[in-house]
């Protein structure tokens, strides 16, 4: 069973749980009024990294829970891209120490890459 797709972020949920108004949150973020935070809540703007960390500190929620959907979509393509990078490294003519070190880092951190399953990715 596939998991349900998460929302990009849960800013509205955590603000509602806290009971704080838009203007109060804006004051905590150092903004003049709540308009900008409203844009974040309604998906019109993506908050910058410093605001994201500030919100995580305000709501006392880990940033990956606060921006669960963004995190999932950002992570989704990494394995394929990593496989493509590993594949292109393996196809190099000169397999020197630097290349071997990169491949070993990828294998340690992202698991072994099977060449057959990623043949299409290698051509990218």
């Amino acid at each position, binding site marked *: 069973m*596939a998991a349900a797709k998460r929302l990009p972020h849960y800013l509205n949920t955590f603000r509602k749980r806290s009971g704080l108004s838009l203007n109060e949150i804006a004051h905590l973020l150092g903004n003049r009024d709540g308009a900008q935070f409203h844009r974040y809540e309604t998906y019109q703007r993506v908050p910058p990294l410093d605001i994201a960390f500030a919100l995580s500190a305000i709501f006392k929620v880990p940033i990956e829970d606060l921006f669960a959907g963004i995190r999932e979509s950002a992570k989704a393509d990494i394995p394929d891209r990593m496989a493509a990078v590993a594949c292109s490294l393996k196809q190099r003519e000169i397999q020197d120490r630097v290349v071997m070190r990169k491949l070993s880092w990828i294998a340690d951190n992202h698991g072994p890459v099977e060449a057959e399953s990623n043949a299409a990715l290698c051509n990218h």
Partner: protein
Amino acid sequence: MQSLERQRVLAFFVQPWRFGYAVLEGPNNLLDWGSKRFLKGPRAACIPFSVKVARLLSKWKPDVIVIKISHTTGTVRKTKIIEKEAEGLEIPVHLAHGRELNDAFPSLPNRHARAKFISASIPTLAGWLPQKPKIWQSEPYQMSVFDSVAVGIAYYRQRDRFPDVTVRSNSTLSIESFRRLVG
């Protein structure tokens, strides 16, 4: 088919004079909740019910909508409006009867006891729990929030018992009658 525990459920509890809604992502994870009145008189057409429902659907993008059925005239009409909006977005709608609600909370004798139980299991709602009204007092507006949360939890607990209504291709509601209802 999605994992039931992670499904985002939008539950409605429609009454003739107001409706309560709750958005849940799992039985104990309440994302949003609220209660809105159906205005009468000149303010009635300010924001039609269909627009309010459409806003909720676009904001929360639920996987499933659950509506507590009531056979009062106004609520049947409102239920059809919700179904129509859901149909446009191809969101399945399930209808909950009173008996499903009662069976999901078997040991709780009345709505207030149910609300008390919900406020204990979802601490966010603890501040919303109203005093039990005396018999001559009107129902507190917060009760519709607790009722809609109860509908959502009942769905998680007894998914198999909820009849699926939509997505259906041929709606019984014609465009003319829908416009009359909305407009």
